[in-house]
């Protein structure tokens, strides 16, 4: 029986069929591929957990592997877990351990275009690259078997294209796993000082033994067609090559590290021209060149962004129907949803004229016009440290003139530890955490964020004076309703004026989690003077109707922010009572 499954769904199905006992991943805000895999794993009856960050996701599966169970981690940023993953190679996996890394050529989902394949040498781990959903299922099974045979974690690397493409997949029977139990091996499992060097030798030996078998792995295959052109490729690019160059011979690498040297030599000898087609970094090409095999690759195709059959055909002489110039369509930058409390918060931050060290996640939505309230934002949970760094070198020049702004997801990812660090050093600063009630997205309990912040920074609640705070060495933590613009603005001004550290928790429910719909707002067209104050909120429901501003009732979430910014008193809720 065949079912249409995406790459992520096929990986989840493989977990169910291969007796995997835990799937743990960090989905975050943008990693919706990972979120889809965890969701699918749950539906297949596998225990799946959302972790607050990549490191925790990996540690959970390490623990499961050491307890003798098969376990799979899924992350969109493999670079975030280089250290524990490398150490796990020394310690050695017990139960099969696979780490799914989802790279994002074209940077549509994440923030950076990392080619995680470049980490294979640093991590000294086998690298497996499925090209489609059926291979995701087949190769995850192979990865778990390899992991158990060589006692080593195995990376299954895909790109967003493979992750989000559905293909017919043959299903097998699912089976429940049974963990073997903990085995005491303190010499190997405790990386005490002095042991690392010895254990690394053991890990290298296991990798070398594995390397001797890569040539005969069914994951690597030669497809001989015309000898005129031979293409070495892997992952998503394989199917693009088959589409664009149907006559070319192909060496398809499913187990690309350790590189199958002998297989590559044999293939190269059978074709007249050897070309490497790979997205992003010239990883396979460098392996071939290191073996002294002449080939082309870098320079033929772009080194950034996603490849597709058109680009490959253009570079290598296939048929291309690209004659007409592209029709330009207006850009549609992401914007906060109607009713998003972030919009109110970002607007309040603009009114207090501060530098905003932002973060990734929904807080990022203040990046584009008309809100454009962020001054930096580039890594999850980084805002607190970034603002602290500026304060350390600029001192008075930024004191009271900057805030760190982050979502609760980013706060729980790593911002919270940075906050504890800032507090521990006795430094000042203002940290704004947007609490939206969507904590389940990062697998954290719905605990009260303000209490957590208080515990981390040794804060006193309430409105104690600045003097008292200084005397007791505690910081101020307060909560505001983000959609109450005046209160939020006043709270920000007050906290910015304090010399010591303070945390503002701006509460407001995500409109997607809003269970009781609020009545929409409407413009009184007689009163409206078209000043544009509401328009500058960038709300998807508000537009300039040229006689008056217009609120589209079907798009309005009834948050009432526009009512608060309208100086002419022309906007009101359509609630019957008001």
């Amino acid at each position, binding site marked *: 029986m*065949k079912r*249409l499954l*995406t790459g992520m769904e096929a990986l989840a199905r493989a977990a169910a069929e291969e007796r995997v006992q835990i799937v743990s991943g960090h989905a975050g*805000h*943008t990693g*919706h*591929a990972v979120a889809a895999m965890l969701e699918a794993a749950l539906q297949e009856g596998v225990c799946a957990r959302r972790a607050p960050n990549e490191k925790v996701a990996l540690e959970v599966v390490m623990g499961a592997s050491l307890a003798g169970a098969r376990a799979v981690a899924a992350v969109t940023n493999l670079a975030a877990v280089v250290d524990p993953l490398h150490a796990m190679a020394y310690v050695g996996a017990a139960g099969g351990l696979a780490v799914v890394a989802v790279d*994002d050529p*074209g940077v*549509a*989902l994440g923030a950076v275009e990392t080619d995680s394949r470049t980490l294979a040498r640093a991590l000294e781990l086998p690298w497996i690259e499925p090209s*489609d959903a059926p291979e995701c299922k087949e190769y995850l099974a192979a990865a778990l078997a390899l992991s158990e045979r060589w006692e080593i974690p195995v990376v299954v690397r895909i790109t*967003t*294209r493979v992750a*989000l*493409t*559905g*293909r*017919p997949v043959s299903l097998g029977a699912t089976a429940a796993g049974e963990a073997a139990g903990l085995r005491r091996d303190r010499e190997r499992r405790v990386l005490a000082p002095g042991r690392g060097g010895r254990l690394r030798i053991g890990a290298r030996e296991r990798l070398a033994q594995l390397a001797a078998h890569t040539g005969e792995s069914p994951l690597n295959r030669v497809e001989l067609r015309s000898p005129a052109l031979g293409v070495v490729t892997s992952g998503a690019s394989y*199917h*693009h090559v*088959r*589409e*664009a160059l149907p006559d070319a011979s192909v060496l398809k690498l499913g187990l690309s590290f350790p590189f199958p040297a002998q297989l590559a030599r044999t293939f190269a000898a059978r074709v007249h021209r050897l070309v490497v087609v790979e997205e992003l970094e010239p990883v396979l090409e460098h392996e071939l060149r290191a073996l002294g095999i002449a080939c082309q690759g870098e320079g033929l195709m772009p080194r950034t962004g996603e490849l*597709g*059959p*058109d680009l490959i055909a253009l570079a290598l002489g296939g048929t*291309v*129907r*690209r*004659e*007409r110039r*592209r*029709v330009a*369509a*207006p*850009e*549609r*930058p*992401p*914007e*906060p*949803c109607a009713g998003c409390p972030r919009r109110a918060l970002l607007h309040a931050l603009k009114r207090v004229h501060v530098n905003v060290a932002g973060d990734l996640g*929904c807080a990022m*939505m203040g990046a*584009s*016009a*008309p809100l454009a309230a962020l001054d930096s934002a580039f890594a999850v949970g980084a805002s607190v440290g970034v603002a602290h760094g500026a304060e350390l070198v600029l001192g008075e020049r930024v004191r009271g003139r900057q805030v760190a702004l982050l979502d609760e997801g980013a706060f729980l990812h790593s911002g919270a530890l940075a906050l504890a660090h800032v507090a521990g050093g006795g430094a000042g600063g203002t940290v704004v955490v947007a609490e939206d009630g969507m904590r389940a997205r990062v697998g954290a309990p719905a605990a009260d964020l303000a209490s957590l912040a208080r515990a981390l920074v040794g804060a006193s609640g309430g409105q104690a004076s600045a003097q008292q705070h200084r005397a007791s060495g505690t910081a101020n933590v307060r909560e505001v309703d983000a959609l109450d613009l005046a209160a939020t603005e006043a709270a920000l001004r007050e906290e910015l004026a304090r010399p010591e550290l303070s945390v503002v928790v701006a509460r407001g429910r995500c409109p*997607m989690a809003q269970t009781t719909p609020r009545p929409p707002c409407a413009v009184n067209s007689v009163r409206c003077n078209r000043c*544009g104050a509401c*328009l500058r909120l*960038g709300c*998807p429901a*508000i*537009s*300039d109707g*040229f006689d008056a501003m217009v609120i589209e009732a079907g798009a309005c979430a009834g948050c009432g922010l526009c009512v608060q910014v309208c100086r002419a008193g022309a906007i009101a809720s359509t609630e019957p009572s008001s």
Partner: protein
Amino acid sequence: MTTGVTNVLLAGVARQPVLATARLLAEAALLAGLDVSLSECPSPAAWGGPTSVHVRLGDEVHSPLVREREADVLVGFEQLEALRHAHLLAPHGFAALNERLLRTWRMRAGLEPAPDVTARLMAVTPRVVSVPAESLVQGLGGAPLIGLVLLGVVSPLLPVPEHAYQAVLAAGAADLEVRRAALRRGRELFAALPSCVTAPRAI
């Protein structure tokens, strides 16, 4: 074009049922014994951004991506997003274009006019059909059904028999009659079109 492969491009914005509609089409094709690929283009879909899905069906599909000027059918859930994919539309291609246009902030603020999408698609192919999908599903169940209307419009051009859609819909259970009705309204709209638009040229 790979011989025997039909290329369908579905484009809209987040929270329109673009992926669900693509999934229905792909599953029906699979049920009808075709090879199929469905590829959602990664986008920060939670934030109202563009969302598009490439569906390819036929005897044997390789790349999940529709190549430039090779989309036989373009299903535009939203006008600007349809325009964004005009370069993929084949010169003989068929475009079903929902009348809905979700303006960008610059358009809402009057800083930029909304383009005439129908005219610009007509420059690529004469087979452009405007579909009032939102009004056609009024009284049925609203916005979640617009995908079924649009799929109904293009379905007579696709190598998937109607019973396959019905079977996939039936497996979904909920609101079956309403879903069937939405699909039927789309088919009726297609049936009423002039033959110069509906002729199954080169598909």
